């Protein structure tokens, strides 16, 4: 299955999608750009933070609602499309359901555990809690403590990028995990893009690294550089310049549309994007040293 087919089949208009689950790393930019190219509409985006991917989808007019803790450009600051959408309704009005990182994590964890809510001690007294009906006040039946009940979040689709998977979608991923595992389990469908599809034997050699079992995966697609400009430890580093360029080049709607034309709408697919990025730029992001993990022994 190609990425284009996966998005077409499993991301209908109006879907709620959790992305950017590993925070600033492993962001599924290739999949996000394909969503923009296919002009999906009325999406709800869910994530703790999203770096600039959410901003791009918002600017492209795909998004009706964002359920998140933070939307911006991590190394640059504000996200201009988010601001235009919230402040001016451009290119369309945007509903924001504000959370904290922890309440997003707990909402997805509740979904993954199959309970309608989870209790927490965070955000009490904040306007985040006061203005979000999915963060209601409750009282502990044992201690009488005041807590918040974080309502379960059950996205229609999780889109995650991983280091390697086999053809059945069993995934090895490493580095910081953010909310990835719970997001995958909480979602009705799961689309995986992987740097590499590897033989099943590689995955089977280390079941403790198989944090996403294939039977939960709806579609798996090999997509090298699928997270660029975000980093994938062991494969490539963060393209910091790209984030700074985005910040400089999207201050007005006109600038953003030029950017979008150059990097998303005007490229056919991810290979075309990578061509445009250029070999030198890619090579400069490659790891300069090897640092393989020490083996764990599974023999018996």
């Amino acid at each position: 299955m190609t990425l284009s087919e996966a998005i077409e089949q499993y991301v209908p208009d109006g879907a709620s999608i959790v992305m950017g689950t590993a925070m600033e790393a492993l962001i599924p930019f290739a999949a996000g750009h394909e969503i923009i190219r296919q002009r999906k509409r009325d999406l709800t985006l869910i994530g703790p933070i999203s770096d600039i991917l959410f901003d791009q989808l918002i600017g492209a007019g795909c998004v009706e609602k964002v359920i998140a803790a933070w939307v911006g450009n991590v190394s640059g600051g504000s996200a201009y499309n988010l601001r235009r959408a919230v402040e001016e309704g451009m290119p369309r009005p945007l509903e924001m359901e504000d959370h904290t990182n922890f309440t997003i994590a707990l909402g997805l964890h509740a979904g993954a555990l199959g309970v309608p809510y989870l209790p927490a001690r965070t955000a009490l007294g904040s306007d985040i809690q006061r203005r979000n009906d999915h963060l209601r006040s409750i009282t502990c039946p044992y201690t009488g403590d005041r807590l918040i009940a974080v309502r379960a979040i059950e996205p229609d689709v999780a889109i995650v990028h991983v280091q390697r998977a086999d053809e059945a979608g069993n995934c090895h991923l490493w580095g910081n995990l953010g909310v990835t595992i719970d997001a995958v389990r909480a979602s009705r469908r799961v689309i995986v893009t992987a740097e590499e599809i590897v033989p099943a034997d590689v995955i089977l050699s280390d079941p403790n690294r198989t944090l996403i079992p294939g039977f939960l995966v709806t579609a798996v697609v090999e997509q090298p550089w699928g997270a660029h400009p975000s980093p994938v430890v062991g494969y490539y580093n963060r393209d910091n310049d790209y984030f700074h360029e985005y910040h400089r080049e999207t201050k007005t709607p006109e600038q953003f549309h030029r950017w979008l034309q150059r990097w998303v709408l005007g490229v056919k697919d991810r290979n075309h994007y990578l061509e445009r990025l250029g070999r030198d730029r890619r090579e400069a992001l490659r790891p300069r040293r090897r640092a393989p993990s020490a083996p764990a022994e599974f023999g018996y």
Partner: protein
Amino acid sequence: MTGYTLRELMVVAAARQIEDGQVVFVGMRLPLLGFLLAKRTHAPQAIGLYENGIIREMPSAEMLYTMSDPPNIYRATSCADMLAVMGLLQQGRVDVGFIGGAEIDRFGNLNTTLVRADGRRAIRLPGSGGACDIASLAHRLIAIMAHEKRRFRERVSYITSPGYGEGGNWRSAVGLPRGGPSVVITDKAILEFDPVTKEAVLSSVHPGISVDDVLAHTGWPLRVSKDLDETPPPTEEELSIIRELDPRGFWTR
């Protein structure tokens, strides 16, 4: 004020808030530098938690733009998920947390969500991220921000990260289990909080900055401590470590 920048002074002030062996919710930019500086000076056993799931004792060998950059993963103490580190925070295992803010008020409440200025359209900011969680759950909160009148307001227009609310015992009344802002480090001064009323108090001004200058850039009549100090400048050692950590002055110049 020759010899160092105000940002370098802020990093030093942040570092001094960390005691050896403490567990620190680190954040990025100046707080990260402060954490690294503390590790290299008086707090070699301090432990850094990152909301993306990383726990790190050994400082990363290269400068980070984000906490998920590969140098922060390489030789980390542990890479787990957000719930693992947020669980430690909620348990009360985090001694100190650092956050920034776009606005702060008299009782240390912070806003990074939505700014409403008189007669102007509201401005949408990125939001909480983990800031509200750190402000809610760390034992001591250190805020680091630029000292401008539009940022230091009588009341923030949106409480993203709870400080002391309306003062007094507001935090326990709303159910927060502990903590609250301990110190605000700005580019002009250091503010602490009255132990009873929980109102911000000017406790230290940076060398070369006058009290009037601080008051003029604060949006409410700021109380001044009767034990007002001058912030101790960076030592030579501290400065040389900061410049090793940020050789191009990306954050501190």
